[in-house]
């Protein structure tokens, strides 16, 4: 039997379904692993899953989100084995309903849009950073409900995901002004609120998101504007960063040299992809579980992992 390539499976899931999120793809990949692997004891099963998760986390760049998925799945497996005992039946159910999680997570996005609708009001000027499917779904839902608002979208260098977001919003009939990341300070006083997605939500209630989110959060706090994070609950991750330097991405930039790079944009390769926004800058998290304050997130994560 050919060795199961967890990384390839994960990437395949991501490729095949543009709407899937990274944690869910990770879960799907792990379920696939389960269905193709024979294990005799539950201990062996846990070991297999642990190894696969570790491999996935180290082999994929920017593994923050998929870590959330792996951890969630591990937690679920452990709990089922310990509490319910009928692991075999559960496993069978998981394998049979492979696509179930992807569907459920998309449903989560719909729930978020409904719970978040009340946050979007007529005449709002909303600031959005980079591209986020949940934020897009929320704003689309608001527009469908005939709320009149306008959106500032940041370009989100170096990935330029913001341009993708601007296009998507405009296609849905929402007026957009695309601004460079450095112009947020100039417009923040006229903004009503900021919506931001998340790659992962940390145990403190802080979020990891596309680089630039932290800066915008600081400006928003200074200008007394609410900063909302719009995200699915399955992105809650078991990490507690204390400073930006704790993120591996940040360390890349500490590379000083007097040599000019040969290629034009080689410098850009040293840019981080994500940064961390601490919980004190976040007004609330709009999730499929409801509107949570950052302390609400910590409580839930603690309860889930430490009971």
């Amino acid at each position, binding site marked *: 039997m050919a060795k199961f390539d967890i990384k390839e499976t994960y990437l395949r899931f991501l490729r095949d379904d543009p709407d899937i999120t990274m944690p869910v793809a990770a879960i799907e990949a792990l379920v696939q692993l389960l269905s193709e692997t024979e294990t005799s004891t539950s201990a062996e099963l846990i070991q297999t899953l642990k190894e696969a998760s570790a491999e996935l986390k180290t082999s994929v760049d920017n593994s923050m989100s998929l870590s959330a998925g792996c951890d969630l799945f591990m937690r679920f497996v452990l709990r089922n084995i310990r509490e319910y005992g009928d692991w075999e039946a559960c496993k069978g159910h998981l394998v049979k309903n492979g696509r179930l999680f992807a569907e459920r997570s998309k449903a989560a996005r719909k729930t978020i849009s409904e719970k978040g609708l009340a946050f979007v009001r007529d005449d709002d000027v909303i600031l959005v950073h980079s591209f986020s499917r949940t934020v897009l779904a929320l704003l689309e839902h608001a527009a469908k409900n005939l709320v009149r608002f306008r959106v500032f979208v940041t370009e989100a260098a170096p990935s330029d995901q913001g341009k993708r977001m601007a296009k998507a919003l405009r296609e849905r009939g929402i007026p957009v002004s695309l601004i460079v990341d450095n112009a947020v300070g100039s417009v923040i*006083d006229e903004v009503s609120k900021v919506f931001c997605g998340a790659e992962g939500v940390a145990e403190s209630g802080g979020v990891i998101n596309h680089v630039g989110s932290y800066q915008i959060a600081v400006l928003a706090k*200074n*200008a*007394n504007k609410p900063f909302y994070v719009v995200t699915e609950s399955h992105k809650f991750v078991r990490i507690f960063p204390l400073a930006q330097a704790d993120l591996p991405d940040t360390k890349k930039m500490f590379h000083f040299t007097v040599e000019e790079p040969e290629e034009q944009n080689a410098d850009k390769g040293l840019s981080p992809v994500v940064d961390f926004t601490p919980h004190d800058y976040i007004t609330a998290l709009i999730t499929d579980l409801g509107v949570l304050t950052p302390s609400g997130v910590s409580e839930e994560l603690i309860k889930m992992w430490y009971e």
Partner: protein
Amino acid sequence: MSELTPAQLKAQKKAAKAAKRAASKEASGQAPTRDPREAKKEQQQAAAKEGGSSSNTGNNSNNTQGGSNQSSASASSKEDRTRASRPALFGHLEKAGKVTAADAGKDVHPEVITLALRYSSYQIVGSSDRARTLLQAFQRVIADYETPEGTTLSRNLTTHLGHQIDFVISARPLSVSMGNAIRWLKQEISVVSIDMSDQAAKDMLVEKIDEYIKEKIDVSGSVIVESAVNDIADGDTVLTFAHSEVVENTFIAAHQAGKRFKIIVVDSRPLHEGRKLARDLSARGIECIYILVSALAHVLDDVSRVFLGAHAMLSNGALLSRVGSALIATAAKRKNIPVIVLCESMKFSDRVQLDSVTLNELAFPEMLANTYISDKKKLPEDKAKTSLKYLNLCYDLTPAANLTKIITELGHLPPSAVPVIMREYKSAYTM
């Protein structure tokens, strides 16, 4: 110890009781009871004042307030209890006094007496107005002044003015603007040449006062207005508090220049000065919203600018202004709304103050007890009789951090530049 007759014993007890009552009153900061004769004189004064000043000010609410103040003061002086008392907590603060014409010394000019009583009853309020009227009264004093035998004008006039000033202070503590004006005037008097004749000196002084009023108050005000108008843009919603002359003129000028804007007037008890402003502005066709301080949180979201008047700017960049200004400035700064103070340089003070209670003025507590929104609705009689404590502060202090800029006739300054201006332009503003 000699035996006392029952009658004497009774008299002694009565005296002891009266002394005790007076002592306890002193302790709680109430004015001592007065002679019924003096009370009658007070009433006469009040009547004369009401008749005379209703044509002048045209501010009806202030008028009746002043009238009722005086009559209530006289009424309460007849009773042993006053209706409202000042708390001992802020007992170290300057207090407005309850003066009458009878309290004035013999050489206090009648104009000064009338003026002082109008200050004391809050008929004339506002830093600029008080300084202007005081100087105008001094012109009369100087015109009527005769140097007595054995002394010169330059020495004696100052003393004579000193007596006038003392009476004014006893009616109501001086404002910073008045203090600056008096200091300037004393300086001018002291350099009068010994060779000048009295009449020439008096004429010169009167003229100089005219110039001072014109330059330091009127023209300065105009320069500020001209400049401040540029800070109001089309579509702005501007918030202001109580009533400042120079702020009102700015709004009028901006309106005349064709700008489209909205004003939110915030008002407070007991003086309700904002009502006058709102009336004046809307009479000129400017769109106004009128609210009380407690409603402030609701309107701030739409405000683009806050304009405040000043009683004084202190040397540490802090603003001393009508009580409530600090509240407005803090709330606005929290929302990153610029707070602009319009202040003539003659209101700048050398003083430094860190909070509102180190130095302040306590006004009559009855002003809070006796009136509601219209003077028709008063406290029910039984409530009025219990001695409840009221704190009627006149001013508060806004720290420099809560102000964005000060507009003076010398230019636009950040609050930190106030002492710099005072040093560099001392000659310019003290003339």
